[in-house]
């Protein structure tokens, strides 16, 4: 097992060094914010959840024993915060008899940018990917986000989500099968 590159900062932060924790925030903020943005359709909610994840991690630094890497532990905290939010939102919708708003792909092809990629198409391309991801159940969305967008190993994803590796693999496989027709307009680009 490789030494955790975050260990010095984590130890300092656990001892109360707020600057050290600030350095960890800067190191991981982009990944956690992007995870939250994909998992939660509302951008403001997603940013609040990402912030909440870091604050909760700071409060719990004393409980981090180094059984996993800090990155894995931080992601686990973030996933728990996001899943709690999704669960309570789902309960509210059921309570008020509201049907889940469809964050689905819509007519992806109709909004596809021109086949020649340009800098200004980047945001549109990302939007299309995010809309395709939003059509997945949250447990599938989480695994493909962690695996294909953020590049985690299967064992690490299993630790973050608290499920067996076999479950992670089957979710990845099925999620990609579902995504393929939705992303078909993008698949031809840059092949």
């Amino acid at each position, binding site marked *: 097992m490789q030494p955790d590159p975050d260990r010095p900062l984590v130890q300092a932060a656990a001892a109360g060094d707020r600057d050290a924790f600030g350095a960890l925030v800067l190191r991981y*903020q982009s990944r956690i*914010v992007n995870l939250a943005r994909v998992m939660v359709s509302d951008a403001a909610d997603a940013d609040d959840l990402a912030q909440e994840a870091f604050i909760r991690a700071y409060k719990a630094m004393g409980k981090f024993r180094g059984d996993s890497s800090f990155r894995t532990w931080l992601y686990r905290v973030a996933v728990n915060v996001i899943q709690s939010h999704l669960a309570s939102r789902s309960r509210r919708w059921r309570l008020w008899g509201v049907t889940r708003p469809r964050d689905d792909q819509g007519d992806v092809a109709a909004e596809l940018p021109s086949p020649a990629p340009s800098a200004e198409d980047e945001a549109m391309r990302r939007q299309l990917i995010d809309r395709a991801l939003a059509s997945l159940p949250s447990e599938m969305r989480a695994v493909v986000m962690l695996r*294909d967008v953020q590049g985690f190993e299967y064992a690490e994803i299993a630790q973050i989500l608290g499920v067996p590796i076999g479950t992670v693999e089957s979710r990845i496989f099925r999620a990609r099968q579902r995504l393929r027709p939705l992303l078909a307009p993008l698949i031809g680009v840059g092949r």
Partner: protein
Amino acid sequence: MTCHDVSEDLLALAEGRLDGPRRAEVDAHLARCADCREAVAGQQDVARVLASRAALPVPDAFAARIAAEIEEAGGWYGFVDWRWLATRMAPVAGALLIAGIVTVEREATTTAVQTPGVSLSQVVESWAGGEGENAPATSVLWKQDVTDDSMLLTVLASPADATIGGQSDER
């Protein structure tokens, strides 16, 4: 070898994680199975597109807001894990609540029994007030040295139209 036999290997194959004799077996199946070839290609295509997703920029002052919140919660109470504490203390709070309810109930019962404000004779008098002088309770009240116990016995033992001392209402 069927599609079902290789289905669990397609993901590993698509990601280049399948080696050795098993790889040769799966490759042999793919050579004659267009559906499985297509499934592997689909896995690779989607993974490639997702990997190309450009990260969203982090909101302005995101880290600064976190630092400010941590600073604001600088007191000890700001770092108490209230969720953890609430979970651990819930049984204690529940036990205290039950103990409090039991105590209040017991106090109320004791007070009611000991309250001297209204005697049974007053209650019976009020109850029998509409029955006139022939009502048993009213008859009892005429006697001297009547006690609550004797009056209660009279009321319970007498027929509704009887009066104390064997007097009858019947004429």
